[in-house]
């Protein structure tokens, strides 16, 4: 039945801008400070205070806009979004409504089948974050206002995604981009990057969108995928049972693995937006936009394309290696040391190296093996000192014990045997010891070739040069 339904998803991503101070006040934004030590009179909404806009916030939003091919509105307006909640002391959140700073952009995502899909970005607007509430006490909630007034850019997509996987691919792409641009640290555990998903389903081929539910505060890629899939199944169930989907806000509960309604319909939100009289319209000069444009780094898509052209990588490999600026820089540092085989470098970086980082939960900055050290290891494969298989063993020792590749190779005697005479002697001995297999092979049992390779590798502790061994075996075993 579900094959008849099409999923429609739009995402609202909140990225915390990596400024030192808040969007409208001089309070610090550092994460993890003692509660309420970074909330001043402006953040607390005391009477008589005035917000003053942080210049860096404007620059960062413009940077994002230019990176997604959007228009930087030369005039944008801050508005008040009114609602009551204890973590919002002013009774309104300063946001942008009719005239956001960034309008109309797009981003291409790579689909599983290798094709790309363009996702529209409706707008990106600036706003302040609210404080943080906790509800663990009996009959009380507690409020930390350190986060109140932290600058956010809210990135609103078009309803262009058709599956949870596409939504995750888009979210990852935005995550990569904001980190490349240096405008957000992307730390999802700390809430610096989070997402709401608008999800609806419609009959395949239908023009009109179905009624949507908004899934709130999805703070990991995995949760985004799970929550969307759960919500899609729930909506299809309702519709196939003859019911109607209610437009509402739903919360994903990771522990129970379900979505549930947060606010009832009677309390439909009425935010009564109006221009904030405390803030004048923000006017941006062309010269400012051009200066920001000139400051853009090489963007992930451009870098991935260059990796394909310059290093001969597949689109998939190029995508993996450019997923973060740090990973891309690391890869290029290693390639600089082994320019003759960028593909082998890519396999090593994406393989053993990335696996070890993940296993030990490290990022590149505190990797146990440096680019220079990895470059030496890969060079030893290229110059035939060791085989690729032995390189794995060397890498493990480098990672675990902090050793240099050459030291491991020498101390463990892992140097590859490339002496045709020595390998030939090994082969002769194996042939003499296995007359039956030799006879069978010569009478047409080709599969036994692998047996001789295995015996030879065993006899040399895996150190025989594989290509040379193959050539010699073929010659000697021939009838």
């Amino acid at each position: 039945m579900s094959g008849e339904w099409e999923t429609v998803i739009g995402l609202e991503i909140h990225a915390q801008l990596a400024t030192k101070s808040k969007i409208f006040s001089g309070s610090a934004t550092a994460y993890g400070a003692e509660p309420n030590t970074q909330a001043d009179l402006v953040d607390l909404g005391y009477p008589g205070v005035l917000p003053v806009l942080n210049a860096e916030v404007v620059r960062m939003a413009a940077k994002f806009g230019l990176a997604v091919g959007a228009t930087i509105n030369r005039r944008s307006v801050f508005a008040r979004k009114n609602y009551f909640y204890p973590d919002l002391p002013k009774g309104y959140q300063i946001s942008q409504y009719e005239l956001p700073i960034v309008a109309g952009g797009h981003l291409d995502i790579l689909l599983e089948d290798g094709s790309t899909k363009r996702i529209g970005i409706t707008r990106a607007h600036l706003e302040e974050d609210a404080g943080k509430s906790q509800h663990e006490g009996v009959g009380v909630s507690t409020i930390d206002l350190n986060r109140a007034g932290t600058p956010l850019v809210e990135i609103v997509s078009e309803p262009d995604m058709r599956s949870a996987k596409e939504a995750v691919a888009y979210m990852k792409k935005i995550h990569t981009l904001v980190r490349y641009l240096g405008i957000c640290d992307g730390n999802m555990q700390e809430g610096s990057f989070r997402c709401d998903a608008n999800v609806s389903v419609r009959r395949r081929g239908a023009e009109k969108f179905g009624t949507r539910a908004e899934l709130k505060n999805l703070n990991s890629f995995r949760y985004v995928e799970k929550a969307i899939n759960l919500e899609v199944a729930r909506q299809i169930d309702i519709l196939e049972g003859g019911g109607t989907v209610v437009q509402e806000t739903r919360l994903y509960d990771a522990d129970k693995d379900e979505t549930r309604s947060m606010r009832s319909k009677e309390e439909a939100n009425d935010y009564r937006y109006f221009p904030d009289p405390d803030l004048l319209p923000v006017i941006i000069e062309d010269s400012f936009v051009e200066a920001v444009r000139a400051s853009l780094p090489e963007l992930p898509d451009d870098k991935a394309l260059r990796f394909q052209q310059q290093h001969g990588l597949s689109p998939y490999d190029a995508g993996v290696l450019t997923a973060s600026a740090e990973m891309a820089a690391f890869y290029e540092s290693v390639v600089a040391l082994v320019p003759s085989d960028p593909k082998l470098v890519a396999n090593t970086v994406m393989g053993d190296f990335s696996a070890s980082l993940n296993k030990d939960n490290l990022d590149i900055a505190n990797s146990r093996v440096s680019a220079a050290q990895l470059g030496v290891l890969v060079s030893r494969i290229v110059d035939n000192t060791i085989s690729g298989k032995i390189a794995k063993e060397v890498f493990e020792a480098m990672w675990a014990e902090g050793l240099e590749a050459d030291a491991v190779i020498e101390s463990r005697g892992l140097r590859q045997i490339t002496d045709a005479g020595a390998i030939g002697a090994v082969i002769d001995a194996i042939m003499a010891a296995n007359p039956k297999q030799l006879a069978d092979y010569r009478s047409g049992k080709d599969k036994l070739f692998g047996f001789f390779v295995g015996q030879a590798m065993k006899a040399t502790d895996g150190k025989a040069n594989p290509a040379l061994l193959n050539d010699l075996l073929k010659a000697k075993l021939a009838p």
Partner: protein
Amino acid sequence: MSLSSKQIEGIAHLARLELDAAEIPRYVDSLSSILGLVSELERVNTDGIAPMAHPLEGQVQRLRADAVSSPNLRQLLQANAPQVDAGLYVVPKVIE
């Protein structure tokens, strides 16, 4: 311009004000009359005039440099709070 009782109740809810049933007709009258006064403005011809976001439009929003300038005033500010605990503001529970 006349507001209904239901609209008055809605506005009161948004403002988190509790109104007696007896008070509602009074607010229907007084708020409707305020809106009536403001609606006089609708008689002005505004064809071709771009909406303004601010009476001082034409002036530009000033920006400040991204620098931390506020000291930690927690002790002073929390002296105004009815209840604090371990540096946190304590309020009646807001979710079930």
